């Protein structure tokens, strides 16, 4: 394997046989409860009418976005985008607000009530198996995949491989590598024989959503300060006016007496 500068996955839906070895491997490797799996396979079911049928399967886990929305939504900085790819979550900082869950366009972060209350780890999601990848092993889901539907490597390298595969079999694939540009790029790249919307993937612009939101958010403090000043001025003005009115009223009352 060439040196990996930017860890990434490539998922090829034409190869996936929905065997779920990746799910079992993830559960065992990361010692997570089965109901709270970090990876899930959607057997998207069969489309068409007997006997003209088609089946699609999609393996979902964290997309490890280049511009993670979870990270920009997190008010306490519990998420980190590592320079070499993985998006990680620090349970020690998490306050359980669930903003990340609403922010993620892929519905990835999973809220864990039990763990949240007992251990203070509210959110569960794919960690990219740091215990494996930094020891020279593939992530658990990738290593076990019997059909190489899941592959692991350097992001640039995988993007190249993906385009080569489309070029070699243009009849087999949709001519697009999902995640290369979506939402500013992700480190989970997807090839498919059916439209990506049929795999349940959102149609996202190339400009990351949070580039806009973060710009707005960056204005928060100046805006808050400015708005504060306005409000202060208004309050002061009103108070002044009130005082004048009061003074006038007092004067009136006094004259009545």
């Amino acid at each position: 394997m060439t040196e990996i500068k930017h860890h990434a996955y490539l998922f090829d839906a034409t190869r996936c046989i929905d065997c779920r070895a990746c799910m079992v491997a993830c559960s065992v490797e990361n010692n997570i409860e089965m109901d709270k799996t970090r990876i899930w396979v959607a057997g998207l079911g069969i489309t068409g009418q007997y006997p003209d049928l088609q089946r699609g399967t999609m393996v979902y886990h964290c997309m490890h976005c280049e511009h993670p929305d979870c990270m920009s939504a997190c008010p306490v900085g519990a998420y980190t985008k590592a320079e070499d790819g993985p998006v990680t979550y620090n349970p020690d900082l998490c306050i359980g607000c669930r903003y990340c869950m609403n922010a993620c366009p892929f519905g990835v972060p999973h809220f864990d009530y039990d763990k949240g209350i007992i251990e203070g780890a509210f959110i569960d999601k794919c960690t990219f198996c740091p215990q494996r990848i930094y020891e020279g092993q593939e992530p658990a889901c990738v290593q076990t995949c019997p059909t190489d539907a899941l592959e692991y490597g350097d992001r640039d390298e995988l993007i190249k491989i993906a385009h080569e595969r489309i070029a070699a079999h243009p009849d087999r694939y949709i001519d697009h590598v999902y995640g290369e540009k979506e939402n500013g790029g992700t480190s989970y790249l997807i090839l498919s024989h059916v439209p990506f919307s049929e795999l349940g993937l959102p149609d996202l612009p190339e400009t990351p959503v949070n580039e806009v939101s973060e710009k707005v958010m960056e204005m928060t403090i100046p805006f808050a300060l400015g708005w504060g000043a306005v409000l202060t001025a208004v309050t002061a003005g009103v108070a002044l006016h009130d005082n004048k009115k009061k003074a006038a009223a007092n004067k009136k009352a006094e004259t009545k007496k």
Partner: protein
Amino acid sequence: MTNTISRRDFLKLGAASAGALALGQMLPPRVAQAAREAGHLNAERDGYIPSMCEMCVWRCGLIAKVKDGRVVKLDGNPEHPHSRGNLCPRGQSGLMNTYDPDRVLTPLVRVGKRGEGLFRQASWDEALDIVASNMLKIKEKYGAEAMVFSSTHNLSQVQFENLLYAFGSPNYGTQRSLCFNAMITAFSLTYGVEEPSRKYDDVEFILMVGRNMMEAISTSETSELSHAIDRGAKLVYLDPRYTKTASKASEWIPIRPGTDSAFLLAMISVITTNELADCEFVKKYVVGCDDLPREMSRYTTEWAEKITGIPAATIERIAREYAAAKHNALAHPGWRTSNFINSFQTERAIATLNAISGNVLTPGGCLSAEVAAEGAGLGMPKQPPYPRVSALRLDGVPWKYPLVPLKLGVFQELRDAILTGEPYQSHGWFISRQNPILSLPDRAKTLEAFGKMDFIATVDIIMNDTAWFSDVVLPEASYLERYDPLLPVNGKAFIRQPVIEPQGEAKSALWIYKQLGERLGLGDFFQYEDEEDYIRQQLKPLGVSLEDVKLKGYAEMPAEESDGEITFNTTSGKIEVYSETLKNAGFSPWPTWEEPLMPKEDEFYLLTGKVAQQTQFGTQNNQLLHKYSDEPRLWMNAQTAAKLGLATDDWVEVTSPVGAVHIILLATEAIRPDCVYMTPGYGHLSKGVKTAYGVGASDSALHVTYTDPISGGQALSQTFVTVRKA
């Protein structure tokens, strides 16, 4: 609340199971000690140990990650040709078989009525004495043949069979006739090879007849098929159901059940009458090639269209595409081929298709007759000759089924002979790794046969259905806790070694059979001190130490010399498309068409077939697999269901001539309108398997017993059922 660990919580086992597992951890850490000495584990008892999977019979190599004396993760061993670093979902979940809260951890002796599930714990000495004394009592009173033995493919089977032959009983029931008799008998008669291996390196055209490779996963072969498809090889797949393999195929042919051989015979006819075969190879190596065109000429594509429902033009095109690929074409032999009375003929037609494409043994050919015999080239403990057995076999081999290979047998016939008491009555049943109650067709009959027995003993790791109805249950160590005999694969002898201590008092099969053998007065047949000594004796001819093998996971074996001459282990030394042996036994010497039974108008073919997450009836209690399996439901074509007023999630009653079950319906486009499908192996009767109990329904409760007179295979798809709202 029961004391079982709920599925939701089980992965907290690290902490939660401390109570359940404490017994195992208190034992002297012999395995850990050995593993530390071998360099696998560090002082903290953490590390990686190579071994072999046993979640199915493909036997992938694995590497177990051990932490503080517990196995925490299994990965595929990159050095093992069956796994190449991968494991399927069953292999990944293997540690949950070991840490199953329902494990039987001490010998048990029945105290209630059979099937009540009331047992008391016993010591090994007491339990083994009870088993041995009952077996001896039966032998003395009725003869050794009154004891029936049952097992399934596994690495210690050689010692199970040793026990059976030494004891002197001819009555041995295995899964074989419920699985692959048709394939093995047909290929043995045609090629002299039980199961030819497949090569996908250069394959261009693959024909699969119901071999659902993407769900009935054999890790390396599934991977090879997937890569072949990826490369652009064409896969034509015949199956009444749109399986996951069908979804990956270039062409899915939803053929009418039972008519595969008509389709294949018509293909052979197209190829031979149009002289599209590999003549050079055929003339040299195939018996019957001169008369084949004449014999096959009656199987026209028009004839086959009427029977199969597949257009004649489609059959013609596929035959021509197959022939055009020459020796890069592969007609896959299949695996569980027990489908119809005529499945033997289907397999003969497949064998013939391969022969005429010249893909057998030729350079670059896709079918290889090289099959390594299990244990060949390894040493064995010394033993005296087995006693002569003169009693007839209850399964009718060979006196009723002359062509069924002796080692395959006819399990369903054996069960029926227990019931009828003909030609003689059997009285005891010793079972290891089998579950006749769920494996044999017609469960009610099997339960009745159990009732005929004076004594039943079962060896297993959990309280499977057969153990539940047994008198004594002997707890076996799981595959992560024990040694088994070495297994040679592609020039290497691989080891299964304990990666953790056995839990409770569980013991290896090698130990159990030896202990029992000694108590039966058959100690001379078990000349090994313990499991390690057994393997040392196996390794002796290789000059390799056990310690080396434990560290590496395998021993290199000397390469076998080949003289390059092609001969087949048949009477003629050639491929027998025409078989004199079949003719002499009164059967058609040619692959031929036999009309199968058909359902009546309101009936459905009952199909079964594997899912990727389960192996037969043995893994449903694995909590990980339980979680990641689809709920077992009865598939019915969506339009048929609508006509019957049925919808997905309705409870339905499925009735066959021998039983009825209740199950939830799945209305789907993915099945022929005249078929229903259910996942086999569910519907457990044992309340001792708490995860699996109450889930799904039993296919064995519905299956009617039909035996193919040539191969002895049980026809599992020949059961017809009616379905109504429950």
